[in-house]
């Protein structure tokens, strides 16, 4: 599994917040721009707010880098103008590698007991 693709994927790390959230929104399946923004907002309880410009800037870059790709509209969508985006295989691996990286960081932090100390409120 830790084939060259993971090596290649790691060259994209670390991801910016916007990119991570974007990729995460696509993890369950293709979505359109508005849907991505909605997902990010609800998932984070409004803590993460992404501007539309930032979103499409990220979309363009990720597509140029081959992490996401255009996807066909699902049959139930009534608006033919909407464009859907989906994770590519590389995109999925990048998302996983980033999640692993973050997880490892958090585990290091836990071992140092940083969660138990400090901020009282």
């Amino acid at each position, binding site marked *: 599994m830790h084939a060259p693709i993971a090596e290649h994927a790691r060259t994209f790390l670390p991801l910016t917040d916007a990119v991570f959230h974007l990729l995460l929104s696509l993890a369950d399946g293709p979505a359109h*721009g*508005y849907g991505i923004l909605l997902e990010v907002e609800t998932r984070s309880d409004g803590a993460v*707010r992404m*501007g*539309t410009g*930032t979103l*499409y800037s990220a979309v*363009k870059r990720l597509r140029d880098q081959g992490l996401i790709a255009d996807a066909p509209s699902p049959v139930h969508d009534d608006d033919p103008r909407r464009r859907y985006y989906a994770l590519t295989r590389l995109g999925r691996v990048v998302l996983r590698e980033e999640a692993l990286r973050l997880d490892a960081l958090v585990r290091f932090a836990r071992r140092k007991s940083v969660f138990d100390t400090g901020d009282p409120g």
Partner: protein
Amino acid sequence: MTDPRAPGPLRLLARLLPRDFRREFEAELLSVATRRVEQGRSGVVNESLDLLRTVVREHARRVASNVADYTRGGGEPMGTLTQDVRYALRMLWKTPVVSAIAAISLALGIAATASTMAMADGFIFSQVPWDDGDEIVSVTMRNPTRGVTTGGGLSAATFAAIDDSDLFAELALYTTSLANISEEGLDPEQVQHLTASPEFLDITRASPMVGRSFTERDAVEGAVPTVVLMHPFWERRYGADPSVVGRSMRMAGLTRTIVGVMPEDFELIPANVQVISPANFADQIDDHRRRFLGVGRLESGITTERANAEIATLQAGVASSTDPTLYEGWDVQVEYFSDTFPGPTDRRLIQILLAVSLFGLMIACANVANLLLGRAEQRQREVSVRTALGAGRDRILRQLLTESVVLAALAGAMGLALSRVLVGWFEVGMPAELPRSLYPELSAPVLILSCVVTLGAGVLFGLAPALHAVKGELRDTLTGARGGTAGRGRRRVRNAFVISEFAVALALLTGAGILVKAFQTISSGDSGFDAAGVMTFFVSPSNERYPDTPSLQALQRDALDALEARPEIARASLMSQLPRSRAAQVTFYDIDGHEPPARPSDFEANWIVASTGFAETLDVPMEQGRFFTDADGPETLPVAVISRAFADRHFADEDPIGQTLRLTRDQTGPAADGGRRIVGVIGDLPQQRLELNARPTPTVYVSADQTTLRTAAFAVEAASGPGGAMAGDAELARAAREAILSVDPGLPAGSMKTLETHVEEQLAGPTMIGVFVAGIGGIALLLAALGIYGVMAHSVVQRTREIGIRMAMGAERGTVVGMVARSGFSLVLVGMLAGMPIAWLMFRLIQSALGELTGVLSPLPPFLFVTAVLISVASIATLLPALRASRIRPARALGEE
């Protein structure tokens, strides 16, 4: 295409996105953003800000990837640019003469502008080189009726009165002089010595890098005398040895302890000071000699106006406590140092230089635009073909713009290289008293400004031709119809260029003519003395070793004898100042039996103390009577020699010999009672720096044996050696130095240089400016001539068909020449008329800068000369194409279309 419901700011911003981004995402981005705003999930402001960031980010990304592509060997977008640049270079190369002329004219314009800006940057915008230097005020005296508007000396008495007031937070008095230092193991040396109140260094906010500064205690009665060394002097004389602090040296007759060394970047004004020592001026309330300068910082809240008003009252008190005539006409002036330095004359000269170089750049730009316009026309067909083949209009525009930017970049590089040379050349002419911070320098702001000017000129002057080429008559050109007579509007533009070029050239050249003439007049004609083979130096004996007039006179006689005893030296003499000195000493006078002047200042003359050999050493002819001889001693009848100009002023109808002069400088001694008997009339020579040879100032000479002279300028003339050859400069200098040391081993000869070098140095500034302006004027003339030639040649080509028809109808060759020449001359004439008022303004500017110098000058001769030159140049530039037109063969001209 875009969502019509989208908020205006978003729509506007979206338009700024890069094209490929827009193509793909603009519609969707706007519709999503609109929906979010409508559903209250986001605000227009937030979305706009985010979009703005996106715009910037996307463009930056594009540039970055272009650069990356380029470094990788050319991707698509950058590929277009490299292609454009390559094509531009090829096109420029295709018309090498036109391109070279355009590039060179632009380069010259840029070089002139950049180097003058460097100079102006140093002079006008630089500050007093100390911390909070803009707070520094100078306290000096002025006497407007005597033409001293600032910078006159202050007396210690006035200083004491001012120092007692609450006007100043800090105040110091200082003066500079020559002093001799001696110490074991090192040669005695003459130095520039600054004596100042102990607070002086604190006012500069600088502290020594080694050792300590002065304190109040250093200036009290009986304190150990101390000195602080300036960095360059410490490096040179002591090899930068920090252990000199604490050592003793003798200076100006006192044994002093070196207590500190100033840091390298610390500069004084004047910048050639080498040693600083403290003095107590506050106690000298009875000293009314106006020979000091004040410097300080005002108490906060005190304006210079208020300070001046209050000091006027204090000064009135000082004047009433002594002989009031001592201060008659003099009042104290407090002003910000940055306003007084550099002086107004230098400031105006810089303004003239700036105006001149901007004019130069204007002509250069007009010329470049003109040339490019001409070429753009010739290339219309090419442009048309490319358009027809589907090249977008902005693509062609971009190509043409690239060409002018490439041209401007080439010119800019050449121009900046040239300006380095010019700046280096300016630097040589800077006087030693100026701090380095005022030296011209191609600093970052100057370079950036120059680059902006360069690129601006390139774009601006490339744009007009480019627009012309793209706009309008493209189809006409391609179809070939009426190509010859098209473009009336364009011709008007080019005509306007030629007219303005001639207008500016006229003004510039007239200005250059006046300046060059003015500076030439200074040194033109007979200077009245012969500087060849004369070596000069200064000797400044200390008060302690030579306390009185007899001891000074004895030393001077011994020194002259010792000098003349050397085989290398034919003659030696001394004088109070060398000819053409920066600050000439003056005296008022009365003449017995003559009506006294209404004001004492009406009878004012240069005051020169000289020894017996003066006239022979400098080869100044005696016109009447005699010069001083050994018979004129301290005990004999006080005598004076007057200059030709002096004699002309007062003794036009009578014999000056035997008349009696009373000089205000003779305040003590026997001369004050009996006056001085005039014994001779000597030829005129310029004593002041910018004095005209042709208009010498009246001068009175007094014998060194009959007055007191401490710091003396010596002049020695080389003797022919045994082989008949004159002693060389180095030989002469060594002989002089040794002779002086043989009289007093502690007495150095300083500022050793030939008289020729001295005169050259004094005239370097004006000469430099004159040459610079004349150079730019010459370039302007050349450019204007090229401009008109280009336009005329071009119009002849364009009118080939018309001329052909006329000739076919029987027009004479002469008629054709006349027709073409007339149209050219009318442009020149209009240009000249338009240039006259500008030339007049230029003259007034120069007049205000040079004042008296231009008093003798009329603007008319340079103006007429320049007009004649311009017209003859214009004639050639017009007639050549006109003659070509007359050789047009009708059949050929008609068949050509």
